[in-house]
């Protein structure tokens, strides 16, 4: 019985490693810069060619998910040169720092998504004054 269960699992696994298939076409992981200051973590992601309303930023249980829908800009043209492909963007990050979810903000300008994750009060460094006796 246990062997059967294992065999079934092994059969399922080849499909389980293809999360890309949930969305149509090729997906690209955007390149990012991530910076941390005392008060916040900021993420800059290159996601050119999206409509601002098609960019999604979600934060849940310490997981930040960036998703951008990006439709092909040319229809059935014959390329003389083709050095990059166009498709949706998707990338997920695990944020270990406690974040003040209520004041999280995101913007999309010139094809760059900027996400600001303010640290929650509890996780900010506190300066403790040392008193001389």
């Amino acid at each position, binding site marked *: 019985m246990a062997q059967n269960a294992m065999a079934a699992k092994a059969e399922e696994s*080849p499909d389980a490693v*293809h999360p*890309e*298939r949930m969305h149509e*076409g*090729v997906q690209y992981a955007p*390149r*990012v*810069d*991530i*910076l*941390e*200051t*005392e008060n916040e*973590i*900021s993420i*800059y992601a*290159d*996601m*050119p*060619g*999206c*409509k*601002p309303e098609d960019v999604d930023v979600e934060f849940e249980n310490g997981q930040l998910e960036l998703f951008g829908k990006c439709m092909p*800009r*040319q229809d059935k*043209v*014959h*390329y*003389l*040169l*083709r*050095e*990059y*492909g166009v*498709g949706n963007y998707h990338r997920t990050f695990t944020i270990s720092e406690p974040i003040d979810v209520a004041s999280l903000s995101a913007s*999309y300008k*010139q*094809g*760059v998504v900027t996400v600001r994750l303010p640290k929650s009060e509890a996780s900010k460094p506190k300066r403790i004054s040392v008193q001389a006796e």
Partner: protein
Amino acid sequence: MIVNRGDARSQPWHEVHRIRSDMNRLFSSLGRDWPLLAASYPPMNVWQDGENLYLEAELPGMELSDLEIYVIGGDQLTIKGERKPVQVDRAVWLRRERGFGKFSRVMTMPIPVDADNVQAKLAQGVLSITLPKGADAKPKKIAVKAE
């Protein structure tokens, strides 16, 4: 790795087929339009119709004022610019993948273009350039006379 001798005789081809099917699965999941990797920055796509050549490049985070675009000799297109790094005071870099700095790329167009009427626009980090074909390069319709 310990290979059982009895298996070794029958297994190699099995292994080759397994690797091949894994590779096929990998490439099919990436799709058929697997783009070529560009050696220069920015990567470009170029296509044409009867009237124009079209060039597109992804330049996220840049404005038209950061770019210089010009055509020399009727067929050499140059795109120059500088991408500035993100600057945040007293910050620690946790990840740095986006490139920055000056770049310049020269492309030789396959046919001469009308340099005076080249148009460029930049929207959401995508640069689109329309280069009208030179008068000599446009397709000409040749009337076939019946005798």
